[in-house]
């Protein structure tokens, strides 16, 4: 499975939310999307760095990228419903 690089990712603004809310917001976005879509979540809770990848691992989605800048954590997730 590969990401459709031409399709705009779906953005989730989870700034100021504390875990597990960033995970819940990602989860709610992923349900509405298709395999191959990307979700970009912006969080300020350092816990998101562990929790979002953990949630992706157990639910079969892939973390493509984690970037930290200006106290924000930006995580890109590739949706995979095919398992």
């Amino acid at each position, binding site marked *: 499975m590969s990401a459709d690089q031409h399709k705009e990712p779906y953005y989730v603004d989870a700034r100021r939310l*504390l*875990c*597990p809310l960033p995970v*819940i917001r990602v*989860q709610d976005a992923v349900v509405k999307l298709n395999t191959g879509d990307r979700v970009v979540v912006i969080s300020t809770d350092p*816990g998101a760095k*562990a*929790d979002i990848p*953990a949630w992706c691992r157990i*639910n079969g989605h892939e973390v493509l990228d984690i970037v930290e800048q200006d106290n924000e954590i930006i995580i890109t997730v590739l949706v995979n419903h095919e398992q």
Partner: protein
Amino acid sequence: MKQQCKAVALISGGLDSMLAVKVIQEQGIHVEGINFFTGFCVEGHTHAVRKKHQDKQKRNNALWVAAQLGIKLHIVDVVEEYKDILLNPAHGYGKNVNPCLDCKTFMVKKAVQWIKEHNFDFIITGEVVGQRPMSQRRETMPVVAKESGGNDLLVRPLSAKQLPETLPEREGWLDREKLYDFSGRTRKPQMALAAKFSFKDYAQPAGGCCMLTDENYAIKLQDMWHNRPSRDYELDDIIMLKMGRHFRLAPHLKLIIGREEGENRFMQGYKNQFMSVYPTSHPGALCVVDGEFKSDEERDQALALVARYSQGKNEPQVKLVIRQSTGEEQEYSICPMLPDDINKDWLI
């Protein structure tokens, strides 16, 4: 022949639900987890914000448990619906402000709805007869099953042999002989089972995963309820109760003073919702004002208290700014409060 049965497990992140899932997985059942976010879960907030907790792993225990068991986890935001459970519990509160019996019933009811929507067969929980004073008594466990509508679709694998047979057992999806008969407050059988399954490094919440069972938190929540016209609350209110030192100066005025940098930074996020006070002449704590100053004396008392929590506490004067939630700022100069002048009754 029936396809592989599917069960959803209520996952709190503690050992008991972890064991319950494993016991059912061992019988060839497909299990997925469900975790309800009420807003009162301990982890997350404090660990994420406070430096004191930096050594603790910033892991979400429910996610961690799901990963150990290799199951999917569905986290459900029930903050809004949960308000009615907390504010009007039909069965009352436990030792603090924990409406455990209503809470458990609510969660199982949500799980019943979930299995219908997702075509699952039954529900499992890690409850143990007699383990907890409110929701896990021999008399109350059937109440949860009945009032939630879970009835005989609700299986408690760790105490199943102490309880009436459930539908999955009658139908032969589960072998009752391979379920357990734990009861009472001892944790020894759980420890032994954890060792059998080679579980290590599990969390031991036993009620410790919920702020509503915490005495200090309960006092702050009750203070908020007592001093507001309505007991209704927003998520921000209940998160703020975990932050900082809380000083109740008057029924209409509470100061929340950050204890450390992480909290100050986090509380900054509320500056457009609440009035705030911060020192400008010296480094020091940020204060969020829940309420209003009804007189200049009240304002000066608050300023002096905030100045006490700045590095200028021994100076004759400290400069501070009062920032309105609208962004208007005004600077004041004040003599910091002496420790003996801090009324002990203010601290909640």
